[in-house]
């Protein structure tokens, strides 16, 4: 009996341990997300404090711009500000984007930007300090940050190429700078030039971005801010250094909160899947302990007390698991970092930051999810009748009406799909919330319905087994079918993970197919130049000098650069606007002009995509209002309406008009055709000869352009797979858990099979195949639900340029096969345990 009791304790540990693991992983993801974003945040906080240390007042344009579009100030203000009483030191700053190229290779730019600054001798007003060498003087000299220097083996005296808004230029590295205490600015590359050189490189002659001011001794920053503000013209403002820090931090926090929410929604998926596992485990545990619970009832415990007992057990499991999860979150934070780095975005590095909030949220998530998931099973426990204590082998599970389940499940699923469709197809304002809620409720509906499908699907999936591997297969199939609810809720967890993965795969392959179709159908351009850095529009791009040089190549014609910018619509929303060369764009991009003409737009009008025009209710000749950071609200005439939107460019301006309204001079891509009389290979070689010096560009033909777009999509796809991976791992653990519990429950049965001659290998095979059936059931449901999501989302986005619905059949089939393999892995431990049961103890087991 002692042996049996010990065995029971060990089994108890195992089943609670596996449940706890589901909680641990979910909590770890949540905590890891916070640690990750908090770490970035605190890294930035330190940096920004460094930047403005010693700065009492900042003079800047009143309009902060949209996105990263910055508006400069006239240089003459510097002297006016210097004349204000109480001003100590003054440092104007000229800023821009500068690509460092060494030996033809672009450095950095994959995530953090490639920044360029002007040097100032006012050391208290700059975070930059000379670590080595001397300050840059005159054209041809620069400083770079220590991290970039160390990371790329660049030393004082080396020569590098710099690409800004002009042609590539050679510079000598005359010194190495550090940024405050650290080697770099959150991973950005820094190039520091003298004042005039910076103005020349960044197209800012006579302009500065900001003016930093230090107060004279005894002058308070607030007083000085007010005094400086008094001499500034309209549109320029003075702000105290402290306020500037707060404002910048708020911007960083806002950007990070987006990342935070994105990552937390993946964490939510993991937690949601975990909830299924917890629910399932507690349900099975309660069922297995029904005799024990009935005994408690028989000796006088109330139903409520029994419920409490289960809840308290859940509470302790959750408490321990959440604590472990929070600790593990640090590892997850590193994992997220690695994942983002692997797909080409390198977040800044800094000391790990664990806020008290992370710990509170971690425990809250772990406890709430566990307790809510355990609530239904706990209530079930209270309904165990005392008489069950006397019955041999427990009572058969109560069967609730299938009709009730079918109706409930259908209603829930219909509500979910309904909400999903409302979000996708009806123009509601918070569509994403409808879609998210719809997906969640659809999952619940399918999970409620799945026990109805468990038996037939398990039978179908397991159909070949009895015919191929005989009685072991037959038993595996029957075991998977015998408790449909258990099989179904185990499979449901996997269903959610697989559904999301399948959805992402369908979505991505539809985008790829759409891109492919639109590029081959609608881009007559033979060649293109792409910017290879990973940067927001405005935070970098192709030097306009490249376009100028390409135009001089005889082998090319219709060289057509494209610019991107952001503006504010009259409804307050921010939208992208594209700058195009009206003379050549039609040769490289089949816009399908419906009315008006591109030439008409050359002197100041806007070109609209037909859907946008319809939405705005305008036609050619009407005017719309566009607000630009640089020039404010402009009334613009609609000069052309076009049909195709393959580059997602519903608003287009002629390049000169674009340049009137934006400070940035970067091009985002350049299209070109092979000139008559030349051939693709020759034209391409000529193009590459020019482009090579720029470092951060790549010449592509149509096929490569498509491949690059697909590579980008696949990169994001890989990130999504990685982030969804944890949910899948949790789901697979759920299978392990259910099987372990089932093996425990079937100890005598397995003992009997062994007694009548079943070999250990056959026992293992039986459990493996049962697991495979459960996993395949989950994967099939998942692919079905994921296909529904994929179909509806792609259909809804047909107007946004995703015109082709492509099902990646091979990939979906691989998911299902992989799920089957995952089933084998999940079954490894339970199968081993089952095969090692001592036959004599198993048949004597009670």
């Amino acid at each position, binding site marked *: 009996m002692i042996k049996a009791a010990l065995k029971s304790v060990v089994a108890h540990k195992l089943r609670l341990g596996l449940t706890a693991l589901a909680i641990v992983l979910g909590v770890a993801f949540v905590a890891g997300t916070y640690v990750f974003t908090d770490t970035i945040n605190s890294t930035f906080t330190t940096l920004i404090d460094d930047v403005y240390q010693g700065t009492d007042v900042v003079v800047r344009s009143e309009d902060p711009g949209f996105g990263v579009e910055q508006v400069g100030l006239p240089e003459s203000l510097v002297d006016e500000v210097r004349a204000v009483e109480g001003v100590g030191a003054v440092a104007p700053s000229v800023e821009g984007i500068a690509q460092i190229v060494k030996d033809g290779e672009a450095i950095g730019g994959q995530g953090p930007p490639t920044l360029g600054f002007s040097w100032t001798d006012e050391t208290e007003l700059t975070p930059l300090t000379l670590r080595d060498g001397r300050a840059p003087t005159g054209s041809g000299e620069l400083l770079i940050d220590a991290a970039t220097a160390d990371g790329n083996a660049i030393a004082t005296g080396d020569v590098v190429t710099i690409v800004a808004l002009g042609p590539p230029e050679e510079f000598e590295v005359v010194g190495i700078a550090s940024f405050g205490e650290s080697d770099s600015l959150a991973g950005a590359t820094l190039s520091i030039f003298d004042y005039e050189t910076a103005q020349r490189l960044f197209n800012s002659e006579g302009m500065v971005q900001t003016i930093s001011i230090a107060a004279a001794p005894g002058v308070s920053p607030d007083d000085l801010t007010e005094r400086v503000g008094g001499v500034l013209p309209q549109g320029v403002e003075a702000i105290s250094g402290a306020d500037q820090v707060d404002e910048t931090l708020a911007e960083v926090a806002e950007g990070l909160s987006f990342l935070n929410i994105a990552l937390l929604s993946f964490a939510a998926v993991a937690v949601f899947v975990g909830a299924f596992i917890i629910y399932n485990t507690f349900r099975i545990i309660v069922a297995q302990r029904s005799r024990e619970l009935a005994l408690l009832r028989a000796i006088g415990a109330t139903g409520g007390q029994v419920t409490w007992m289960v809840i308290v057990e859940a509470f302790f499991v959750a408490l321990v698991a959440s604590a472990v999860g929070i600790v593990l979150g640090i590892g997850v934070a590193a994992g997220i970092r690695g994942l983002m780095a692997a797909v080409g975005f390198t977040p800044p590095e800094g000391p790990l930051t664990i806020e008290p909030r992370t710990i509170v949220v971690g425990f809250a998530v772990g406890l709430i999810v566990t307790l809510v998931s355990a609530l239904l099973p706990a209530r079930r426990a209270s309904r165990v009748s005392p008489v069950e204590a006397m019955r*041999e*082998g427990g009572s*058969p599970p109560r069967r609730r009406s299938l009709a009730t389940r079918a109706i409930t499940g259908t209603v829930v699923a219909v509500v979910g799909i309904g909400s999903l469709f409302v979000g996708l197809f009806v123009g509601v304002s918070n569509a994403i919330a409808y879609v998210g809620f719809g997906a969640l409720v659809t999952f619940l509906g399918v999970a409620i319905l799945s026990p109805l499908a468990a038996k037939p699907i398990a039978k179908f999936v397991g159909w070949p087994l009895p015919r191929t591997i*005989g*009685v*072991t297969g*037959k*038993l595996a199939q*029957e*075991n998977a*079918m*015998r408790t449909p609810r258990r099989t179904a809720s185990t499979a449901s967890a996997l269903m959610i993970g697989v559904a999301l993965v399948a959805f992402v795969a369908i979505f991505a392959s539809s985008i790829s197919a759409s891109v492919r179709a639109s590029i081959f159908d609608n881009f007559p351009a033979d060649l293109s130049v792409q910017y290879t850095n990973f940067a927001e529009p405005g935070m970098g791009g192709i030097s306009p000098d490249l376009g100028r040089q390409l135009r001089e190549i005889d082998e090319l014609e219709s060289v057509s650069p494209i610019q991107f910018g952001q503006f504010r619509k009259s409804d307050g929303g921010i939208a992208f606007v594209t700058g195009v060369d009206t003379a050549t764009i039609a040769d490289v991009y089949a816009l399908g002009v419906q009315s008006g003409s591109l030439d008409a737009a050359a002197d100041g009008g806007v070109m609209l995509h037909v859907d946008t025009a319809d939405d705005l209710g305008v036609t050619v000749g009407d005017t719309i209002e566009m607000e630009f950071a640089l020039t404010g609200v402009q009334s613009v005439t609609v000069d052309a309406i076009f049909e195709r939107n393959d580059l997602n460019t519903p608003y287009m301006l002629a390049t000169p008009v674009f340049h009137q309204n934006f400070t940035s001079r970067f091009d985002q891509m350049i299209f070109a055709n092979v000139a008559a009389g030349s051939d693709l290979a020759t034209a391409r070689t000529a193009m590459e000869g020019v482009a090579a010096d720029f470092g951060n560009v790549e010449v592509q033909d149509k096929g490569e352009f498509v491949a690059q777009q697909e590579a980008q999509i696949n990169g994001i796809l890989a990130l999504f797979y990685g982030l969804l991976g944890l949910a899948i791992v949790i789901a697979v653990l759920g299978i392990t858990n259910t099987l372990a519990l089932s093996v425990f429950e079937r100890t*005598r*049965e397995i003992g*009997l*099979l*062994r*007694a*009548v*001659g*079943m*070999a*250990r290998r*056959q026992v293992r095979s039986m459990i493996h195949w049962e697991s495979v059936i459960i996993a395949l059931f989950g994967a099939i449901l998942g692919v079905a639900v994921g296909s529904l999501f994929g179909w509806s989302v792609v259909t809804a986005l047909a107007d946004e340029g995703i015109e082709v619905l492509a099902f990646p059949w091979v990939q979906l089939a691989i998911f299902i096969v992989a799920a089957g393999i995952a089933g084998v892995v999940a079954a490894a431990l339970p199968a081993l345990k089952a095969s090692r049961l001592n*036959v*004599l103890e198993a*048949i004597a087991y009670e």
Partner: protein
Amino acid sequence: MTTAHDTRTRIAARTEGATKIYGSGHAEVRALDDVDAAFAAGQFTTIMGPSGSGKSTLLHVLAGLDQVTSGEVYIGDVSLNTLTDKALTLLRREKVGFVFQAFNLIPTLTAEENIVLPLTIAGKKPDPVWMEQVVTTVGLGDRLEHRPTELSGGEQQRVAAARALVSRPEIVFADEPSGNLDTTSGAELLGFMRMAVRELGQTIIMVTHDPNAASYSDRVIFLRDGKIVDELLEPTPDGILGRMKGLGA
């Protein structure tokens, strides 16, 4: 019937100095203490004894479910002591049949599938003539397609008995096979087992504490404190009861 105990009769299973010790030191329990026993082929032998006498342990070591601490156990000429788990599994599959007191059947399989289970595990097909004979003898008739939960306790035990016989094992081991049955069902099952011995030449070794059940067998051996203390041929319920009283059971 004396021929059944003739010395020339083939021995289906035997033990030589079989000793089984559980625990150690102060808590040491000798479940079997130097037991020499032989079980003739084609005979129905019952092992009886009070609780803790070692009767179940003797059955388990004979069946290869448990191993002796010292001594030898043979099924036919095969010594079980040196067999690996794999070999023991094969032995159980091919040479031994089991009927337990309860939980004899796999709930997910039909009666027929349960009966042929040892054969299907071995990847063999049942001999249809023999299968027919066993099924007819068991008298399940049209219940073969039913699941165990749809069968009465007596029917379930008869299915178990049919399963034990279908692979024509050298020995069938029965551990309180009628323990959970009412009198009528118990009598049917035991009658069937006796018939299997008389008419099909089966060897059966059974453990029971019920003198009435034991009276269906050809021979009863009595155990007390792990030792064989008595033996009775051609037993009757009263005769067994008398011996049991003598053992202080």
